[in-house]
């Protein structure tokens, strides 16, 4: 069976602290949308405090819950922005 590239999930700031890490890889074959990635992520210890509808970027572009995710994509979960 050919191996499928994982989905790379990036966590920042408070969300990284909640989960205790800033990068994780989830199996790429069963996560077709941002919604599925977040649901899987929120099952991890500490991650249930991440909102069900956080700000998300897929491959550096802002995305919605229904945005598609493909194996090898980078999905960034963004806490409320506080620059400037």
């Amino acid at each position, binding site marked *: 069976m050919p191996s499928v590239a994982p989905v790379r999930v*990036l966590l*920042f*700031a*408070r969300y990284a*602290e909640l989960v205790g890490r800033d990068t994780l890889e989830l199996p790429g074959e069963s996560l077709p949308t941002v919604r599925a990635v977040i649901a899987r992520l929120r099952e991890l210890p500490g991650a249930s405090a991440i909102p069900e509808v956080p*700000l998300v*970027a897929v491959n*550096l572009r802002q995305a919605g819950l229904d945005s598609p995710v493909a194996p090898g994509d980078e999905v*960034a979960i*963004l*806490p*409320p*922005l*506080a*620059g*400037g």
Partner: protein
Amino acid sequence: MSHLSLRPLDLTALVETVTAPDRGGVVTFVGTVRDHHHGRQVTSLSYSAYEPMAESVCGTIRAEAERRWPVRVAVVHRLGDLEIGDAAVAIAVASAHRDEAFAACRYVIEEIKRRVPIWKRERFTDGTEEWVDPRREPGSHVVTVNQS
């Protein structure tokens, strides 16, 4: 051009990147680190970013402003550890006339606050630290979290 800097911001150098003989108006904005937040004394803070996206979004905002007004825009945001009074963000906008420069500068700072993935962790005099959540600010347009 990089829009993020780990070193102190140099406003003079930033202005020099946008000035030209035909641009008679230069507007700058500098956001600095405040010593208080919600009545608590802040001692220092640190900024972190999703750097590749922050670079990209800053470039997009700059391009939007330069498309909408006849201006040249430069913007840089500081990352890492900052002290009270340090410049956190600096913007320079040059145009033939001042109206466009003021309008574009205002646009750029508001869009940066709204769209660039940067986070701020404040340290207080009592030794505690906290990630800043602008949604909880007084006057925020977003529904505030019920903390009771």
